């Protein structure tokens, strides 16, 4: 297990280095102009000399390799630089935004995981009945639904027509930060979280269903049937454990899709999370923030995959005992 973790960490380190080099290289060739991002709308009033002075100050006139080394050495010391649009350290911005997104993502993740697993298990056990067909139809429809479109639909129906939920933002407008309650935050969280969950269901449900169908056609289930097991008992004894491992793995490995979905959902709901910060950083050329977010999302996705790997090892005796033997 320790050897496994060391190997994983080593792999992560190399991944991170490659990611830093690649994204820095991409950004340095992009048309984004950091000076314009810094100055903003006053660009026309800045003379050429002033531009050069700013470039000199930020070190932008140096060759890319030197800039990369400068940025990289700061990064190793934990300094991700200063966000140009927020005028605050990147680490602070990401930390704050990430907490908001984490609440959203974990709610969506839990809800879609549980609901998807239950739906998939029912459909698998009732294979080829109308229940199964209905579930498949629902999942295929969802799988081909864009996040932003569903988000807009949710806003139109539940926020505008019915007025049950706020149209957007993470907290009520016009209220002092100290006066915002947890209930307020949750209230604003429900609609975006629901949007993400409904979409996340399809993936895990279809995987669970297919895996369960395979299990039910296996030799050991045939033998269990021959011993008189059927229905829920059969599922409980032989289906649940065998289908739970791939389902959990998929759910943890879906962190990347979760982040992707969050970017879109936050944009639709103007939810002040990491996703919205990403879009802003991109549109307004905030390169330090953009690079910081890239690294943090990589870390997040890597942790998801690592947890999936570890759980697989803990739950499946074939891997657990096979290693110690």
């Amino acid at each position, binding site marked *: 297990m320790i050897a496994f973790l060391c190997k994983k960490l080593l792999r992560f380190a190399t991944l991170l280095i490659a990611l830093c080099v690649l994204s820095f290289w991409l950004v340095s060739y992009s048309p984004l102009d950091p000076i314009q991002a810094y100055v903003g709308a006053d660009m026309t009033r800045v003379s050429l000399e002033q531009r050069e002075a700013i470039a000199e100050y930020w070190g932008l006139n140096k060759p890319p390799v030197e800039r990369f080394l400068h940025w990289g050495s700061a990064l190793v010391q934990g300094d991700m630089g200063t966000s140009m649009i927020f005028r605050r350290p990147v680490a602070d911005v990401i930390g704050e935004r990430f907490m908001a997104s984490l609440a959203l993502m974990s709610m969506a993740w839990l809800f879609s995981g549980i609901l998807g697993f239950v739906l998939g298990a029912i459909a698998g056990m009732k294979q080829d009945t109308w229940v199964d067909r209905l579930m498949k139809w629902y999942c295929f429809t969802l799988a081909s639904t864009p996040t932003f479109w569903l988000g807009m639909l949710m806003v139109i129906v539940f926020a505008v027509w019915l007025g049950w939920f706020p149209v957007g933002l993470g907290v009520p407008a016009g209220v002092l930060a100290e006066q915002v309650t947890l209930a307020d935050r949750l209230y604003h969280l429900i609609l975006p979280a629901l949007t993400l969950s409904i979409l996340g269901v399809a993936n895990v449900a279809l995987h669970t269903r297919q895996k369960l169908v395979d299990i039910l056609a296996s*030799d*050991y289930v045939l033998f269990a049937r021959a011993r*008189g097991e059927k229905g829920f008992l059969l599922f409980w004894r032989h289906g649940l*454990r065998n289908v739970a491992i791939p389902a959990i793995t998929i759910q943890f490995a879906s962190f990347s899709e979760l982040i992707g979905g969050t970017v879109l959902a936050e944009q639709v709901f103007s939810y002040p999370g990491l996703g919205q910060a990403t879009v802003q950083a991109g549109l307004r050329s905030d390169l330090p923030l953009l690079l910081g977010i890239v690294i943090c999302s990589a870390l997040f996705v890597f942790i998801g995959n690592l947890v999936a790997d570890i759980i697989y090892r803990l739950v*499946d005796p074939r891997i657990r005992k*096979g290693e110690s033997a």
Partner: protein
Amino acid sequence: MTTQSGETPLLEVQDLCVSFVQYTSCLRQSTLQVINNLSVSIYPGEIVAVVGSSGSGKSLLAHAVLGILPGNASFSGVISYDGQALSPKRQAELRGREIALIPQSVNYLDPLMRVGKQVQTSVHAGNPRSRQREVFERYQLSPDVDKLFPFQLSGGMARRVLVSTALVSGARLVIADEPTPGLDDAAVAETLDYFRDLADQGCGVMLITHDIEAALKIADRIAVFYAGSTVEIAPVQDFAGEGEALRHPYTKALWRALPQNGFEPMPGSQPLPHELPAGCVFQPRCRQATSECSTERPAMRTVREGMVRCIHAT
């Protein structure tokens, strides 16, 4: 122990036909009859071996008796247990309680469940834990084995665990499906001893196998399976000498093809289910075939203490 006339057989299969619905091309359905007019019976305390070459649909016989055929299969004929015809409902009641299956390999055990626990799920009367321990003790499986997962079992342990599932269930009819493929002689002998043991306790045992030598060692009667049907059911004593006592030409050829009996090869091969010849299914390969053989499929008839599906048999 040959045919016990007068006693009710534990299991009696009469004219069993099993067929599958298949899609040959996009929307064309065809029915493929895999087992046709199969008849066999088993008495308590008796081992009947159903012998046939691989891929002849023998396992389907076991699945039909247990009522676990796949969804696209249909069957006709009468299967009676203890003198009573089996309905799907009664099959579901008897499965695992009265009729037990011994599968061929460790793949039939749940990979994520400890074997002790799995054997305990087969127990229907008494304390599962102590019953399982008792049977494991009998087969020299130590308490450590209870906690093992199927992939950790050695070949020998796996066979004993699989036999244990049948023994703990208290079933009176045991169907063993290909229990000996790929085993060495000592392991085959060991496995067969378990079945003799079950039969001596009063169980009826149906041994489905392609290994005629193994079958001859322990079975009381041999049912020979050819192209989806039984061509002969003979007491084991008839398999002797040059095979003079055997009734069907296929059985004789099978007997003489064994290494110790001349190693005489049989020309031709078994027809596939969708290209069965008219009349007797063995007729194209039979030396005794006459024109009558290709007109009508012979019925099963009794000849000297056995049954045969051949019009020339005496």
